[in-house]
């Protein structure tokens, strides 16, 4: 009897916990988007747009790959220092 109750309680914890985690992260996502939009609007100079091209062309593909590698390496170095 008590055990059954406990499982029900645990399921309630799950509902509450997952709900709060998702709510928290969802609000965070919205805030981050708003923040990004505001910053892009009022401090635009430091946000250069990286042109994005559709997949298909092999040369473009190669370029994208190189760009990704460069980005990853620079990020890694930055983290390291």
């Amino acid at each position, binding site marked *: 009897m008590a055990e059954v109750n406990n499982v029900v309680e645990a399921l309630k914890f799950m509902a509450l916990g997952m709900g709060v985690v998702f709510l928290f992260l969802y609000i965070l*996502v919205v805030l981050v988007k708003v923040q990004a939009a505001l910053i892009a609007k009022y401090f635009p100079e430091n946000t250069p747009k990286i042109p994005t091209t559709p997949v298909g062309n092999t040369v473009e593909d190669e370029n994208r790959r190189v760009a990704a590698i460069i980005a990853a390496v620079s990020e890694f170095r930055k983290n390291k220092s």
Partner: protein
Amino acid sequence: MKLKQIFISLLFAMIALTSMSQATGQDATAPVVAEVSTEKKAYEPKTIAELATSFWQTTGINAIFDVNDGETTSEPKGHAYEREMTWFESSLGRIMMILIVFLLFYLAIAKNFEPLLLIPIAFGGLLANIPLAGMGGEHGMLGIIYNMGIANEFFPLLIFMGVGAMTDFGPLLANPKTALLGGAAQFGIFGSLVGAVMIGFDLQSASAISIIGGADGPTSIFIANRLAPDMLGAIAVAAYSYMALVPVIQPPIMRALTSKAERVIVMKTTRQVHRLEKLIFPIVVLVLSILVLPESTPLIGAFAFGNFAKESGVVDRLSDTMQNALINIVTIFLGLGVGSKLAADKFLVLETMGIMIIGLIAFSAGTAAGVIMAKIMNRFSKEPINPLIGAAGVSAVPMSARVVSKVGSEEKPGNVLLMHAMGPNVAGVIGSAVAAGVLLSIFK
């Protein structure tokens, strides 16, 4: 060398036996085993056999094999909490724990599984199992360390500060919706909570165990200490060993839940993130956690402070200390302190088995939930999302992101998912801190 040691110990054993039989023969009324007294007494002349006997009784060999001396467990809270050890705990149990410790050494050194944590934890465990030394007691080295920073939850917070100073939120800011993947992976925590309750743990212990599914060592220690301090050792060891096993546990689950076509999806390059966004982000997280869940502010506050110091760009000295010197020092203490819970009398209990199993389920469930969530997002999102990055939602930073990247590039050489996986990965850290806050708020 070994032969010599065995010979010496045999010699001692023989001397002890002969002297004991002599003692019984000479004086039948006196107790056979002389009590080792710590009080100062007038020195009485002793025969060489008596000296050897009393020495023998203080050796570790005697303490392990002849266990009738009423040795007590060592408790960092003080003598009042001590109890007498059972025969098993002070003999075979110790030998088993020492073998386990050497297994951990092997995993750390030969297999390179989280050596930074496993070495201090395992060595702490070795020290804690020394007979008669009382290292884990109130005045023993491990006990002092334990009281200094684990009993009051200080060390996990310092670790969080360092992790904050090491974390780059750029990838998350560039693609914010991947944060939801870090939320989905927290299903590992709550799903295994239900599982733990089903196999008979009470709600509070089950909550402490299931936090292993968050794959976050400091959070696990923080929660275990609040909700189930007796299980701290097993929970910490489970959390860190599963974190070390990320490269082994995760890939099969990731492959099982995704199709080849999904695994080769190439994601768009992330945009450049403005410095100001990174600077404001820790404040946003902190304010949000204050409003929604003040219970989790110790963890998130320390994390936000570390990250803010890093992103401010003007206190490189402080942020450098947090990322390196401070976190290293705390790791040493945290490891040794947790290791003190590897003493046979605390670790070799039935619950440990359950904790290990639940921990594994929690970890796998978290990975699976992250991948499934990523699949759903891929279905409904305009931009393609590789479902593999969902597995990085468990907060083992940056290991699970690396694993994702590795699996991704095995499927399609040149497909670099690392940056995309870092988003859910750091969101997972926040997510598990939030989940921890929810659990704490329930048992307040």
